[in-house]
């Protein structure tokens, strides 16, 4: 049996759809609230975990495979095998600020940035020679500039709607991200035929 860690949240539905298209027979019940379930043929066990935890489960080998956003993989240096770009869950990591306040060219040292992506944000600002104070957030990052907690935010944007609703606009783009199929570096060898069979079927339906 293969154990697969899936990201709770916006990637979950697409990930389950992909598994279904790749021939995994999922139970009919509502899966969105489950933490753990198996397919009907008992060939795959799924763990539903926080997106940031997916690569950790896979790196330690508690899960053989995982589906996680490239943003999460980039945020820390995990030793994993990245098997497929699954093409869904397209987002951009951006710097955003209140409308009219900042432009990419006028970002200056001394700013405060709120973000869940501390490492990516640090690398981005360091690369531009800017000393920016980073504030680690765990959610609702869009609120930070409104109440003066930070000057800018670094966050993931899909459509830009949430930014707009909160009076924010994109100042600069850091990178694009999509969902990836990742595998544990040793399990991918000890379970090579099973893992490649599933990955191959996924690849064909992308």
């Amino acid at each position, binding site marked *: 049996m293969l154990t697969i860690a899936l990201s709770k949240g916006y990637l979950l539905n697409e990930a389950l759809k992909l598994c279904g298209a790749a021939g995994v027979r999922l139970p009919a019940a509502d899966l969105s609230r489950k933490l753990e379930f198996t397919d009907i043929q008992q060939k795959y066990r799924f763990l539903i975990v926080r997106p940031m935890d997916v690569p950790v489960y896979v790196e*330690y080998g508690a899960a053989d495979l995982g589906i996680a956003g490239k943003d999460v993989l980039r945020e820390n240096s995990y030793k994993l095998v990245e098997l497929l770009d699954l093409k869904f869950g397209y987002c951009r990591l951006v710097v955003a600020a209140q409308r009219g306040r900042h432009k990419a060219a006028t970002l200056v040292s001394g700013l405060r940035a709120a973000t869940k992506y501390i490492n990516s944000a640090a690398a981005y600002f360091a690369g531009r020679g800017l000393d920016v104070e980073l504030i680690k957030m765990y959610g609702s990052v869009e609120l930070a500039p409104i109440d003066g907690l930070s000057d800018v935010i670094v966050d993931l944007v899909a459509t830009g709607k949430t930014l707009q609703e909160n009076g924010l606009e994109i100042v600069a783009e850091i990178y694009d991200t999509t969902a990836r199929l990742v595998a544990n570096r040793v399990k991918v060898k000890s379970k090579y035929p099973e893992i490649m069979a599933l990955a191959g079927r996924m690849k064909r339906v992308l």
Partner: protein
Amino acid sequence: MKIVRDILPPDVKLRRAILTKITAVIEKAGYAEVMTPTFEEYEQLSAGLPAHLKDAAYRFFDRRGVQMILRPDITTQIARVVGSKMAKVKGPLRLYYSGDVYRAGQLEIGQQNQFYQIGVELFDVPGARGEKEIIALAKAALQAVGLRNYRLDETNAGRINKLPLKAREALRRQDFAALGRLPRISELLAVDLDYYTGLYFECFVPEMGYILGSGGRYDNLCAVFGRRRAAVGFAFNLDKLVLALEAQGKK
């Protein structure tokens, strides 16, 4: 988060027992023990250290202001010894070591900042003959420890290191999404290949998500210390052997 730790009874006894079993196998195969210093001048070792080990090492200045290094591995020290002090000793040389190594970063899962390695190095036996001896010895050691279903996957590091830079980088990161194709089994690697020139292999058991040890051929390493010598060897991580035995219910 990694930290150093105390090892208490009865764990120490288990670890000693594992070391005794492996030592018996490699001594019987004609390998003699070498002891190298825990720390030495950075200058003396740095030429032979691959970049990832330089980055990972603890370095400090002694009272004279000379830069020192806590050894991040022992293979490089052995290569220094046989490339310089033992340069005139006629091969083949069969050497082994066991001791703690220290790394501040770049740790694999299952590695602590201080971890214990036991390994062998075979010098002046080039090509397949030396490689066969080392692989047979690695298997015999795993057998002696009492592990079941262990596997030893071989690949050719020399061929991978000759690939175009982009493909090599993608393989180093194990990023097959970037390569746009699924991996062949020989392309799946758990560790950086920096100093290997030919055979490279990794040992693992299916119960665990990380390797127990690795080895391979590194014919260019001794040259930086004075004399080029064909070299092939392997090292096991003692902590991981313990974890593997536990995972197989053999503690």
